[in-house]
């Protein structure tokens, strides 16, 4: 897992122009064939995840020991696992898990915490800026994976208890239970994924805060929150979202890695990490290669597509 470094600094004019340049950006990106192909792959896999309850042929928990460990067949296009569960259905639901976790991490960790702290640090400067950036420095100097393992190992049983308790609640318990099974992993990931965004947003704000329209707003007596939200945020929102989409892959990869380690998403919620772990013994691979290949190919395709798309997006941002 690598927390994405902020891209090269941009000139203020370019940042300001980025607001109205969604179409221009799209034009440029569309010319990159590899990026478009990657986008299609991502949309297909994540679309399968979103539509999993509709298109999956079986439930992800439906066991059938009589048909355990079968290779691909007409009834089970990607075969079945040790408990006779349909691999295709499990892969689709795993894509859903990855999607939920990565979007949740981006929204909570990057968009809310990272963006908010970056805005405040860049606009206020002084000791506020110093404190936020020093804390960020502490977080970014930590090794991501080991820390996440520790945080999750300690937190996830607690959250699990909560989830079990929530599952017994009358009425909406099921929803709370589903949410709780993701919460420890996305809370832990958010802790580490805000730093890159905060630095990037801060560098953008530093270039904007001395511009005339901000000075005008200050002169008119606009409050700090108003300047941050109404004047600064709209000017950087698009480019920040772009920058973020380039880092989605590393969030997805970390989720898979943590679940493989047994500290991420907990069963029965399906995840690629757990599926890969189940298929990863040498003897297992020799006898039933589909156990590893099915989730492995999904994950590799997804991460490769994210890497290519991220490269293309960074190229487009950097183009003058």
């Amino acid at each position: 897992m690598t927390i994405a470094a902020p891209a090269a600094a941009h000139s203020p004019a370019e940042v300001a122009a980025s607001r109205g340049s969604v179409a221009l950006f799209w034009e440029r990106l569309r010319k990159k064939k590899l990026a478009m192909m990657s986008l299609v792959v991502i949309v297909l896999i994540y679309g399968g995840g979103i539509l999993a309850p509709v298109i999956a042929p079986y439930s992800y928990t439906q066991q059938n020991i009589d048909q355990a460990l079968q290779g691909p067949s007409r009834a089970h296009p990607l075969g079945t696992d040790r408990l006779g569960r349909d691999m295709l259905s499990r892969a689709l639901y795993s894509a859903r898990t990855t999607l939920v976790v990565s979007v949740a991490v981006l929204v909570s960790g990057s968009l809310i915490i990272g963006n908010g702290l970056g805005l405040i640090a860049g606009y206020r400067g002084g000791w506020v800026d110093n404190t936020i950036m020093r804390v960020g420095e502490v977080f970014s100097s930590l090794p991501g994976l080991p820390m996440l393992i520790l945080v999750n190992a300690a937190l996830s049983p607690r959250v699990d208890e909560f989830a079990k308790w929530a599952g017994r609640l009358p009425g909406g318990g099921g929803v709370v239970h589903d949410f709780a099974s993701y919460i420890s992993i996305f809370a832990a990931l958010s802790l580490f994924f805000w730093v890159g965004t905060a630095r990037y947003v801060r560098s953008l704000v530093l270039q904007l805060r001395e511009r005339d329209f901000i000075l005008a707003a200050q002169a008119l007596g606009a409050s700090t929150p108003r300047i941050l939200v109404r004047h600064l945020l709209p000017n950087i929102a698009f480019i920040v979202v772009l920058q973020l989409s380039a880092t989605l892959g590393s969030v997805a990869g970390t989720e898979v890695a943590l679940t493989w380690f047994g500290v991420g998403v907990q069963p029965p919620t399906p995840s690629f990490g757990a599926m890969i772990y189940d298929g990863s013994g040498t003897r297992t691979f020799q006898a039933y290669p589909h156990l590893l290949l099915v989730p492995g190919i999904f994950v590799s395709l997804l991460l490769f597509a994210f890497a290519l798309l991220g490269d293309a997006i960074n190229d487009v941002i950097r183009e003058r």
Partner: protein
Amino acid sequence: MTGYVIRRLAILPLTLFVVSFFTFAIARYGPGDPVTIAAGQVRDPEVLERIRHERGLDGTIFEQYQRWAVRALEGDFGESFIQRGYSVRELVVPKMIVSAQLNVLSIVFVFVIGVPLGMLAAWFQGKWIDPLIISSLLFLSAIPVLVILPPIQWLLAVRFHIIPVGGWGGLIDIYWIAGVIAVPIPNPHLYLPLIVLTVPGFSGVARLVRITALQVAREDYVRTARAKGLTETTVALRHVLPNAMLPLVTAIGLSLAGIVEGSYFTETLLGIPGIGAFTFESVRSRDYDVILATTLIVAVFFIVMNLLTDLAYARIDPRVRLGASNLS
């Protein structure tokens, strides 16, 4: 330069404090009371209280942390809760040595392979070789270690019997010719972990070298070198390469991060008795003091490495430290 070094060194103790307190508190809030585990069948409150006191687990979290930190500074990380009678230190040190050997060897190979590959790609820019190298490297580095390892393991070890399936036998193996002459060879156990650990790293290094080499190639001094009538090879090796190596200093930290993270999966899957596999076992058996110790050791190692690479970079490139006061 001195100011920059002092500024960076000043936050080091703060970072270490925050990290250790953070990890300590998290590990303490993990499920299961270590005292009850240590007491086994005994449920006498007095005995429990005594064990709690012996282990330094009484009082507030701050008092506990203070006691623990003082001992940890002396190298005493307590006793394993699962492997009774062994101190964490006894368990961890031999594993650290194994991991360190493997990681250092990997980082060497990352640069030995990555730099020439990147130069090669830059040399052939505009021809088919360049995109071939770069996109296949990107693809290789996109496949997670935990996906690629079992197939390679099966192919090389089970199918073709070229290398052992897993395990660890040190760095050097002795090959006996006719049972008389001893020839030292690299231990065959090394090949598999080295392949898996270095591929993502050298892909990254190669891509970085290619980009910087192409930038450097447009500089005036390179044009001057060409104008002097030097051959393309001399220009590439004597003028472009040394300057393209500069940003690589920052890549050391990043590659090392990748290698350490990859070790968790590689060591676990291959049964190598290192820190990664040990952390995996401890996480599975919820041995919190061991997880705490291994995480901290890796964290401290990371922080120090980051600091060293930043300082090295600031030493090489004055822009870093001069710009640091208004950009950091």
